[in-house]
């Protein structure tokens, strides 16, 4: 009896020792990058990042976690942090970067910003998100425009529409024409996030950039519960009437497919739809599918920027690798390649967009003019304008309005109330 027991004990102790020793054996310059880019083209681009880092002697572990618009990825990130296992970088965007700054876990990547001259090459509006208390703690990857209207040329021709709509009344008239021909006028309305994404440009068109900022950035109750909001909600209701109920539960890329294949006339969506059209083999701005600024917002630009925050590393090698990663993410080579796939444009304004499609070129031009004229606004639906809780409050209100017979007046009032409650939650 004695001998086997002893042997077992020895084995057990050895096993525990081996487990304990494992982290010490790990490569000092390997960084894990937590993200939710699992779709074909995005995953490809992330792979390029891994290769570029390998060439610099840094081993990147691409932790791509699917689902939930990043909810799962964020959950895993928090779990790792609680276990004391610090990742290299994680996909976090907008105002939430400031919240992560408060935790004191973030690394200072000023060195990378200096090397890449971010101050000069990246627009100030985007830059500001990447800083916590004056130091860079994050790097931007892309620049998306939200206020687009995508349309199928053949469907419009069948409905007798010669040019895409330029203002609100034209849009509604065109939707009616398509409906009369028995085709789907507007693809959308699948879920709360999509409804909010459609409302984004409608709100901007109705109230203009200053009011948009009062509502979605300053969370001003007077601006939220106002006649302007009521009007914007009435317009959302109009769009809803031309969106088939049967698209509930559908994803945005399903809707993009409907427009690509000539089963629907229009879609209101950010230019990640651009990447999806390319993926389906129809180039936007080409003979089949067109893009136009959402009617009434031709001079405005609702932006959405994906970015990565960097975590403080314990080793000197780890810190060095972090700076290299931030530099590579913002290098012209990577940004050009990544954004071409994604349908967005690089954050760097000093690189030429060779091989980009007409819609992307238009996006760059309109960003530059909107920036000069102060018509840039951060997207509320993509979590750029404020913290998670108020954004959620807006989305919940729109959800309830869209899926019930609630009056626009009641919806605007309950929206203001919800946002007020959510303000205490950041």
């Amino acid at each position, binding site marked *: 009896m004695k001998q086997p027991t002893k042997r077992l004990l020895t084995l057990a102790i050895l096993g525990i020792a081996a487990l304990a020793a494992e982290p010490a054996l790990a490569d000092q310059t390997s960084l894990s990058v937590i993200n939710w880019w699992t779709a074909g083209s995005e995953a490809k681009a992330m792979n390029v990042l891994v290769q570029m880092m390998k060439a610099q002697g840094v081993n990147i572990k691409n932790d791509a976690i699917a689902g939930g618009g990043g909810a799962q990825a964020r959950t895993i990130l928090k779990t790792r942090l609680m276990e004391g296992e610090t990742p290299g970088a994680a996909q976090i965007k907008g105002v939430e970067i400031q919240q992560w700054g408060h*935790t004191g876990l973030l690394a200072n990547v000023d060195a990378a910003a200096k090397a890449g001259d971010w101050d000069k090459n990246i627009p100030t509006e985007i830059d500001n998100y990447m800083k916590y208390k004056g130091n860079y703690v994050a790097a931007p990857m892309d620049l998306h425009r939200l206020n687009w209207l995508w349309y199928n040329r053949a469907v419009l021709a069948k409905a007798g529409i010669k040019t895409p709509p330029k203002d609100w009344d034209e849009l509604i008239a065109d939707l009616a024409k398509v409906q009369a021909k028995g085709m789907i006028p507007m693809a959308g309305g699948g879920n709360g996030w999509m409804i909010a994404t459609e409302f984004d440009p409608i709100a901007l068109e109705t109230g203009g950039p200053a009011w948009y900022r009062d509502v979605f950035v300053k969370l001003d109750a007077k601006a939220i519960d106002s006649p302007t909001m009521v009007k914007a909600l009435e317009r959302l209701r109009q769009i809803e009437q031309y969106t088939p109920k*049967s698209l509930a539960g559908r994803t945005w890329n399903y809707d993009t497919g409907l427009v690509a294949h000539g089963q629907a006339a229009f879609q209101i969506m950010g230019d990640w739809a651009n990447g999806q059209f390319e993926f389906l083999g129809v180039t936007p701005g080409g003979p089949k599918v067109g893009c136009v600024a959402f009617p009434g917002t031709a001079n405005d630009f609702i932006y959405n920027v994906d970015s990565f925050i960097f975590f403080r590393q314990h080793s000197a090698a780890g810190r060095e690798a972090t700076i290299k990663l931030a530099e590579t993410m913002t290098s012209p080579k990577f940004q050009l390649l990544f954004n071409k796939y994604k349908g967005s444009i690089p954050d760097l304004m000093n690189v030429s967009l060779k091989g980009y499609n007409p819609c992307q070129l238009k996006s760059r031009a309109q960003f530059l003019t909107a920036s000069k004229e102060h018509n840039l606004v951060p997207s509320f639906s993509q979590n750029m304008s404020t913290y998670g809780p108020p954004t959620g409050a807006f989305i919940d209100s729109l959800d309830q309005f869209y899926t*019930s017979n609630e009056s626009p007046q009641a919806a605007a009032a309950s929206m203001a109330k919800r946002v007020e409650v959510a303000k205490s939650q*950041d």
Partner: protein
Amino acid sequence: MAHSMMQRSGGKDQVIAGLMLSPTVLAAIFFIYAFILWTIWLSLTRSTILPSNHFVGLANYRDLFGSSRWWRSLSNLGIFGGLYVAISMAIGLFLAILLDQRIRGERLFQVIFLYPMAISAVVTGVAWRWLLDPNFGVQAIVRSLGFSHFQFAWIDDPDFAIYTVVIAAVWQTSGFMMAIFLAGLRGISPDIVKAARIDGAGTLRIYRRVILPNLAPTFFVAFILSAGLAIKAFGLIIALTGGGPGYSTNVPTIFMYVFSFERGEMGVGAASALIMLAIMMVVVVPFVILDARRKV
């Protein structure tokens, strides 16, 4: 649990039994009760994207009960839970009684009825989503048979979508309920039934007066299990409706997930989790007490 083991025999066995069980008991204490306590604490703090120890009293509960999304989740749980428990138990009992007539091929029927339970909730959700989708599913099929005005688009209607969840959940677990009731029916001694027959009672009366009252413990088990399943339902609803249209099919589990992990309102999420625990207690505890009394 350990307690009943101890009663059986003296000294040495007791020690061994205690030693064998201690890891499980310790793990249970830590992983269940310590985490419940931690969740209680979180619900009283301003925890947003990460847990924090900033105490805010009952503010999270105030926000929770001020949220119409939460009320909608609760009322959905009431509608879904009530209908699902009642219908799946009724269908289960009915199937069990039919199978209890010693028919031929009983095993085959048992397998057929039990099979849905073997499929994961997510697969069930996706399959029913296709079936209920007006563009491809039941509505499209019936229309293609020539009934061009046939309407069945509950899943797209915020007022009716919760009933599609009931349909899918009932389909999945009715067979399981049948198995429970069948076991109960087989446990009733044939002598009682024979005695009732000799006294001249008809079949209906025998079921009403003899068999069903004897099934009380089985009803209890079936109810506890299905109520538990109803309160915990998550994957099925996510796969079937994604909690939509809008948030019209949100239930407390989905609310908790969204607020804790997607929205960075961990304090509110923790508060909602504890309300769920309270609901579980309110539903289950009286039955447990009743059951314990009966055994004494």
